[in-house]
């Protein structure tokens, strides 16, 4: 591994960030940790917290009943222009038609993690007849492995109008919590 930090500075940095501390510092940190743990535990069991939970639940229920349009993943899915190595006449149209399936993958992920968000670039190889012969994740930020695999499966099931050549596609897809 070539390191952009000079070796002497690197050694000094590692020495000063070794994570080792004197026993009294470690003991004090541990004592403070368990004091904080105990305080938080008492808070969760306190009547104040129970009352706050009731208020929050009531507000959430009221908010949900007033909301005319439920939050869905629809507006949270965006696909940027598809990058192709050879011209595929209907690439953008086919990818646009996959959006509901992308959305389904994301919604499945949201049901497990309400804060799920991120983006992914999917790669696909299309044969001369327009069939997807392979698909994979090129790069990603966030999202779960299950959601990413679901998106790959969607792309594998796509079919384009063949152009007589083998064609590489890159499909950027972003998901966020925008309502």
């Amino acid at each position: 591994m070539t390191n952009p930090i000079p070796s002497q500075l690197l050694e000094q940095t590692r020495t000063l960030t070794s994570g080792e501390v004197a026993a009294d510092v470690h003991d004090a940190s541990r004592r403070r940790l368990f004091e904080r743990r105990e305080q938080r535990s008492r808070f969760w069991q306190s009547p104040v917290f129970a009352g706050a939970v009731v208020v929050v639940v009531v507000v959430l229920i009221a908010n949900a009943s007033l909301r005319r349009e439920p939050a869905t993943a629809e507006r949270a899915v965006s696909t940027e222009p598809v990058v192709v190595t050879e011209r595929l006449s209907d690439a953008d149209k086919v990818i646009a038609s996959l959006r509901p399936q992308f959305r389904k993958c994301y919604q499945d992920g949201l049901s497990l993690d309400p804060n799920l968000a991120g983006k992914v670039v999917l790669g696909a190889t299309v044969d001369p007849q327009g069939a997807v012969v392979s698909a994979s994740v090129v790069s990603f930020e966030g999202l779960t492995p299950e959601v990413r695999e679901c998106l790959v499966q969607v792309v594998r099931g796509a079919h384009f109008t063949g152009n007589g050549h083998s064609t590489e596609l890159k499909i950027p897809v972003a998901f966020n919590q925008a309502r």
Partner: protein
Amino acid sequence: MLAMGLAEEDDAQLVTAVREDRSDAAARVLFDRYAALVRRILQRTLGPAREVEDQLQETFLAFFRQLGELRSDGSARAYLVSIAIRIARSELRRRRLRRILRLTPAEELVELAGNEDPNWEARRAVSRLFAILDELDTDSRLAFALRHIEEMELTDVASALGISLATVKRRLTKVEPIVRARLAGEL
């Protein structure tokens, strides 16, 4: 589970003890076992400031609270590292916001004891390195610190940051020349 002999238990047994009966004794053993590792990750991503003790405690509090989400009881170490990185990311964003709002001057990350300290020159050099890292965006800084200071494999960096290997490589390729040039005084 009896407290006696807990120090010899493996992670899975300790995690089960904490999860099932909220055993403080088992939790203390986990803290003693991994505090140095977590502190090291925090220091190498945030800089060697005393305040990492706060982030250290936050990491373990989150770990104990979220034990139910741990998929495999034996993966406590990796789970702790991922939480520590999440806490470090939040702290870096807080620092950046404070700097933008000019609530505090740029942090002097290493306490400089003065010329009489035999490590003074080293501390000053390390302080300068972290001042350069402060100029990077949060995600690039984390990738750089985990790769070059903590010496993680690229795949481990990707896993710890929840991003793809390609994204890690792209970020490192972008920031490595910047850090090298800044250290050489070229920028």
